């Protein structure tokens, strides 16, 4: 089953995937999900060269605030400096490597490595170091032993990303058509957006690419999430009374660089801003107020788009922002070919009315998260796929061709979002250097 990577197996100018436009066929080899050599190459070509999400600026509101987490397989921490500038560091002492930031989050003016006492300030500078007499006078000059940062750190609308490749294009260029959709999320808050307390850290016994494919897949909603729709039906007042299923509308779109989106209408409530009867009269008033505020700040057309349309946004390679019955940031990374770690947060407008905030958090859990009525079924689907890929090399290919026969009219339940990913994956994996 371990198939060595052999460039040139592709068809139609590709390396590993097979595209036949005549037959509207798009095939992906299943060993891409199981092979260790593939993951090793992905770490070099994708995770070491693409922009990876670290965190949201709102997670470190004050000087000295920090959050530590794994990004692209590396332990990093995001630390707001005494100059208010957010910075990202590799979480490793420049002496002999111990992790210097040992709490998941907190506030500190300095971080001291517990091993030999090397101490760093918020700008990464080495400020104290016992045993200086054992080193030449200029040993620490010019920041030689300062904490080390990833090659590039940039933020777009408070979403902070890193890139380990010093030659990478800037973040805004990289985001391409996805920037428009990050704007539609970031614009929801009159006073900006904030990540709410409470992180959901979980995992899946599946390849990381399966989660990307699943996160903007409209096709599976009716079958995989049948029980979620049963819940909506059984729950008085969570359907919008004016929703017509024929109005789902929208479709899937490739946004460049492997990014993609599906944008559509749905019967659930949106904190920003579609009311459902479950939220009562006070909820109705607040939703109307939010809609009016959006319209006055952004104009009717943009306000309508934000309030009444849902978006599942995929940012290559490993960031999902789902703007649905809640607003979630979901970031994930491969640990082994058959296992990924995922972390999700709830993002909300700063200054949101407390009652709406409570409904938002309650709403989030009806679908999303490791104990929602939908996400666990998604996890199960991916694990069932991974289980099957493991040991049946005789069945070698996935088909993601839905909608290739009508590219001018892509529906939300077509697979153009997945094709965008794989085309970009194939380019990066097949590149020769």
């Amino acid at each position, binding site marked *: 089953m371990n198939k060595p990577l052999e460039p040139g197996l592709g068809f139609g100018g590709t390396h590993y995937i097979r595209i036949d436009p005549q037959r509207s066929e798009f095939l992906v080899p299943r060993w891409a999900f199981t092979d260790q050599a593939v993951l090793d190459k992905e770490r070099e070509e994708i995770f070491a060269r693409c922009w990876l999400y670290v965190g949201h600026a709102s997670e470190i509101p004050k000087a000295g605030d920090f959050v530590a987490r794994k990004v692209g397989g590396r332990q990093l921490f995001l630390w707001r400096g005494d100059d208010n500038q957010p910075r990202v560091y590799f979480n490793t002492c420049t002496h002999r490597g111990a992790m210097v930031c040992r709490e998941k989050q907190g506030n500190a003016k300095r971080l001291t490595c517990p091993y030999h006492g090397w101490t760093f300030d918020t700008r990464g500078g080495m400020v104290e170091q016992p045993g200086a007499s054992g080193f030449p006078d200029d040993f620490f000059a010019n920041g030689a032993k300062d904490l080390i940062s990833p090659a590039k750190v940039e933020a777009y609308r408070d979403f902070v990303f890193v890139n380990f490749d010093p030659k990478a294009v800037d973040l805004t260029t990289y985001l391409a058509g996805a920037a428009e959709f990050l704007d539609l999320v970031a614009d929801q808050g009159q006073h900006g957006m904030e990540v709410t*307390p409470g992180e959901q850290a979980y995992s899946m016994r599946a390849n990381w690419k399966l989660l990307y494919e699943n996160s903007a897949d409209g096709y599976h909603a009716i079958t995989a999430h049948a*029980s979620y729709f049963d819940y909506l039906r059984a729950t008085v007042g969570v359907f919008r009374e004016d929703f017509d299923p024929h109005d789902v509308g929208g479709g899937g779109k490739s946004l460049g660089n492997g990014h993609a989106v599906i944008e559509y209408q749905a019967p659930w409530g949106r904190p920003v801003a579609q009311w459902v009867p479950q939220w009562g009269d006070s909820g109705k008033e607040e939703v109307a107020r939010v809609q009016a505020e959006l319209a006055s700040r952004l104009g009717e057309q943009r306000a309508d788009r934000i309030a009444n349309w849902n978006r599942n946004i995929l940012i290559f390679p490993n960031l999902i922002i789902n703007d649905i019955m809640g607003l979630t940031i979901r970031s994930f990374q491969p640990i082994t070919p058959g296992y990924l770690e995922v972390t999700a947060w709830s993002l909300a407008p700063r200054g949101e009315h407390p009652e709406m*905030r409570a409904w938002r958090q309650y709403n989030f859990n009806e679908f999303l998260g490791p104990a929602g009525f939908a996400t666990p*079924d998604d996890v199960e689907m991916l694990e069932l796929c991974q289980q099957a890929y493991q040991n049946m090399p005789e069945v070698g290919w996935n088909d993601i061709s839905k909608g290739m026969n009508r590219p001018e009219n892509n529906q939300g339940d077509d697979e153009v979002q997945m094709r965008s990913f794989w085309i970009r994956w194939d380019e990066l994996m097949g590149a020769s250097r």
Partner: protein
Amino acid sequence: MALLTRAEVEDFLYHEAALLDEWKTMEWAELFTDDGEYLVPPMDIPDADKSAALFIINDDHHRLVQRAKRLTRRTAHVEFPHSKVRHTIHNVRILEQDDTSLKVASNQIVYRAKRQNLDTFVCHVIYQLVRSGDGLRIRSKRVMLDIDGLRPHGMVSAIL
């Protein structure tokens, strides 16, 4: 009315656990009061406020009944077929008690097995119980997970 002993409270907890281990989820839901709630706060903030923080489970009575119901159907794919679940309960303490209600703490280990994976949920559970004509009922079940992340569990699909 005499106050309840720990043994009597344990009997109730063992009964609740047996219902869950036997997948009698609707009977489990009936153990709750009409204003009952089932909560699993975020692992990083065990004392979080559900109106502000993102919980893992934030079920009011309606939703915990729906959760129970969902698990009786094949369309809850993650639990079709049902995994094997076993609750073990320890360190039961009655923290507070009066004539009508009790606050109880317990440690629980919940094992879930499916497709050759065994996942272990380490829990500290605080119950608010009320005494009724039909015995004890649950007004609040708050399950604090004493693990770093749902890794490799991936989900809370059975009822803890």
